[in-house]
């Protein structure tokens, strides 16, 4: 018996199906997790996750060579061993608690479909060229993707790859299978699999990407499809999100990322059309985007030395990334910096709020990986690379990694990636999502420090002696919260615990931003607790002396003989002024530890050049979400009464 071309094509389509593990998800797994497990009275521990991970469904990740799909990604995140695309066994030492697989919505699965298609059906000359390159070798495949990203940035993706009708059909099948797969891996109380996608708006190569994250199970997420980024604008995305919530009764939020590669476009003072920002735009942005990803493999976006010249820790994860936008189609200038980094955006938010009454940039902070290997690795000693082309191998640290052009980004500029910590009452979709929505989350550059922050007006040192967490929640607000100015300086309870399996802590700092009486945005960094602060490490002038450095460069090791296991502070803002608009966030700094390049040097016997050795030790860190201090609402006279805050 013999079957013809028709069947072959049918097989071709089938090959795009997700053949997951058998069985179907239970009702508890399929929903948002409400009433599936017993919840703690308060958020009692941080849950660790990655909200930004790509698999072979992403157009670029597949092209870069990854052959692991969403199911492998889920298995890996929850602690199982998988075989990485390049053949190595990979397993997380400590599993994650939650995962958002965020494959690009644009041309979702398209490179895989292109690769899988019979060559004779690939008629577009550009596509056929990419097709051949993808089949020729991994190196050529990466080159093809470089061209593809450049084409996307220039809006020159071949029509055949975007054919809406075909795309819609393929997307439907892919997404339906995907959300069903997520349900099967979602285990309330143990592991949370959240649906999501990456929305990759990139006008002129300026990165305006967002990860979109859903609260719900397949019954709701299955009613929509991921929303494409190219040729759309951010208000279109918010319309999509509004429509989702309205039609399904579900919830969804968006997480901007890599503002450091946006050339100032991520956090503008103006509206998207270049005119003044409207109140409506600001309100929607604040509501739709409660959290920003501040650190990941492609650099750290907290701040830049140009913006924060007095911040001695400002240079982390900046090198290489600050020379231009994502595909390096345009260089960055200092004038663009304020729109590209998180701290300056928080400041801009205060200024805009003073002008309009709405703060569009009142967001919390998380870290994630943005790994394109389907492996959510965040640690220095297990860095599996930004994409499959730089999974562990001798050459990866020194190779140019600059997406299509050749102007100075190298493998060693990559960070090992970050993680998101969410303070929640239990590990379910609803609890994790709600923690993001109320900004009770924080970012780390990989280590799992436990960082707690409460802000109020009457906390004292004595609170530590009792049930301080209960006091924190009942007499104050946690990270991400708002305080209304009551004429008194705010007091903060800050507790930072080292990663139980990681490095000691150097110090804990409060970063304060405010708008001064002249309307000028200001920032200041306060060292509030550090190791040996009562002993050998006294302040010299205003400065806390460096903690020291125990890193053995040749062996890629360090000793916890310096630093502290935990740091606590009860801190009152010494520069409080009544009526001031301000934000406060906590930055926890670890002692110096080896970066992944040193582990590579040790593993592969590399001889690193001096500039790389100079950048091979770093102080990893955590950033809390801010607490905002807002002026008490004034009573309005006239026909526009303002609603007083509810208590």
């Amino acid at each position, binding site marked *: *018996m*013999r*079957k*013809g*071309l*028709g*069947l*072959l*094509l*049918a*097989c*071709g*389509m089938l*090959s*795009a*199906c*997700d*053949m997951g*593990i*058998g*069985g179907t998800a239970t009702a508890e797994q399929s929903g948002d997790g409400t009433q599936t497990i017993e919840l703690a009275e308060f958020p009692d*521990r941080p849950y660790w996750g990655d909200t930004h991970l790509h698999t*072979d469904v992403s157009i670029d990740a597949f092209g870069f060579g990854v*052959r*692991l*799909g969403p*199911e*492998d990604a889920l298995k890996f995140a929850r602690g199982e061993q998988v*075989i990485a695309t390049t053949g190595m066994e990979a397993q997380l*030492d*400590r599993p994650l608690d939650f995962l958002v697989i965020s494959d690009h919505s644009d041309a979702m699965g398209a490179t*895989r479909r292109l*690769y*899988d*298609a*019979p*060559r*004779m059906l690939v008629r577009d000359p550009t596509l056929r060229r990419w097709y051949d390159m993808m*089949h020729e070798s991994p190196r050529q495949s990466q080159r093809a993707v470089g061209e593809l990203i450049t084409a996307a940035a220039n809006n020159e993706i071949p029509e055949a790859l975007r054919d809406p009708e075909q795309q819609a059909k393929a997307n439907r099948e892919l997404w339906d299978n995907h959300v069903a797969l997520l349900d*099967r891996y979602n285990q309330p109380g143990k592991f949370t699999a959240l649906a999501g996608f990456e929305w990759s708006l990139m006008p002129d190569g300026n990165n305006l990407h967002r990860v979109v994250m859903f609260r719900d199970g397949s019954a709701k997420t299955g009613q929509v499809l991921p929303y494409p980024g190219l040729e759309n604008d951010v208000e279109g995305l918010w319309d999509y999100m509004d429509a989702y919530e309205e039609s399904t009764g579900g919830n969804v939020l968006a997480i901007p990322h890599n503002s450091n590669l946006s050339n100032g476009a991520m956090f503008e003072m103006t509206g998207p059309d270049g005119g003044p920002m409207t109140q409506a735009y600001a309100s929607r942005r604040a509501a739709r985007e409660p959290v920003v990803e501040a650190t990941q493999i492609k650099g750290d976006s907290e701040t830049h030395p140009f913006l924060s010249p007095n911040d001695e820790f400002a240079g982390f994860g900046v090198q290489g990334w600050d020379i231009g936008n994502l595909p390096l189609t345009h260089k960055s200038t200092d004038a663009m910096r304020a729109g590209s980094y998180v701290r300056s955006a928080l400041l801009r938010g205060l200024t805009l709020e003073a002008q309009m009454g709405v703060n569009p940039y009142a967001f919390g902070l998380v870290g994630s990986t943005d790994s394109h290997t389907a492996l959510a690795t965040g640690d220095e000693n297990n860095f599996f690379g930004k994409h499959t082309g730089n999974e562990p191998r001798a050459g990866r640290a020194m190779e140019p990694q600059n997406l299509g052009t050749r102007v100075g980004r190298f493998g060693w500029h990559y960070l090992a990636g970050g993680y998101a910590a969410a303070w929640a009452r239990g590990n379910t979709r609803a609890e994790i999502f709600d923690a993001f929505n109320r900004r009770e989350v924080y970012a780390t550059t990989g280590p799992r420090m*436990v960082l*707690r922050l409460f802000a109020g007006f009457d906390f004292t040192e004595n609170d*530590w*002696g009792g049930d301080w967490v209960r006091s924190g929640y009942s007499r104050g607000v946690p990270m991400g919260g708002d305080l209304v100015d009551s004429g008194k300086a705010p007091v903060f309870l800050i*507790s930072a*615990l*080292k*990663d*139980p*399996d*990681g490095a000691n802590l150097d110090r804990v700092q409060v970063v304060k931003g405010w708008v001064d009486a002249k309307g000028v945005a200001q920032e200041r960094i306060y060292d509030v607790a550090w190791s040996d602060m009562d002993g050998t490490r006294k302040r010299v002038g205003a400065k806390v002396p460096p903690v020291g450095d125990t890193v053995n460069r040749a062996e890629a090791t360090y000793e*916890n003989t310096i630093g502290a*296991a*935990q740091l*606590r502070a009860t801190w009152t803002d010494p520069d409080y002024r009544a009526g001031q608009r301000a934000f406060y966030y906590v930055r926890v700094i670890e002692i110096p530890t080896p970066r992944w390049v040193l582990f590579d040097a040790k593993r592969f016997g590399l001889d690193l050049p001096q500039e790389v050795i100079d950048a091979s030790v770093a102080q990893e860190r955590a950033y809390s979400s801010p607490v905002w201090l807002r002026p008490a609402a004034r009573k309005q006279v006239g026909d526009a009464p303002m609603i007083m805050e509810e208590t």
Partner: protein
Amino acid sequence: MIRRWLHEPLVHFLIAGVAIYAALGWLGNPVDPADRTIALTKEGQAGIALGFERTLGRAPTDAEMDGLVDRWVREEVLYREALRLGLDSDDPVVRRRLSTKMEELATASAETDAVSDATLQDWLDAHRDRFADGGTASLSQLWYASEAAARTALAKGSPRGFPISLPPSVSQMPLREIREIFGQQFAVELAGLQPQPQWQGPIPSGFGWHLVRLTARTPGSVPALESVRAEVEADWRNATIAERREQAYQVLRDAYTVKRE
């Protein structure tokens, strides 16, 4: 890995043709590229029509069927000529695809076989450690920065510890979670203690030293099959596929002698 094959491309219609032909065991012997007769059986035609129907949801019209047959014949002619010219032999893509397809053949049934509860129960029994949860512990702990401080406090009696943002006590907490919160070293050291009402230790952790009152510990247990069926089945399938692939390869490999110059 499995899914990788399932996704492996039908990269080239020639290759796909070969694979399908092999998969269906058509005629049971290889195409002779020199054979100039192309026979299209009734079954073959039915297959073409079925393929059309699966794609478009209806049977082909007579005219469409003629077109499909023409296309099939065209493909077959080019396919045989390609084989006759040896185009399949020095192309690394063809080589890789074909070898992958061969492996897939060896394991295809394992990917779809229905599996009985008895088989999975055996599998679960044979690989208990893969599915067992780690057990739980109930304990109180006091923290000290140094070992000496902890020992002194223990010797004096009624130790109180120093404040740290760790839970002072936990009840029936899974060991997995204890490891996450207190760290690996603590979890390892804890395993060496026996439950008793007195303070024990000190034991070291990533934070320093702890006196521990371990009040209860439940051993890890293997869950019932029905609660982990999906995991067991996936594990069984993965292992079975790998095993069959190796077996199939060995049978073929044994027939070859490799001489490496």
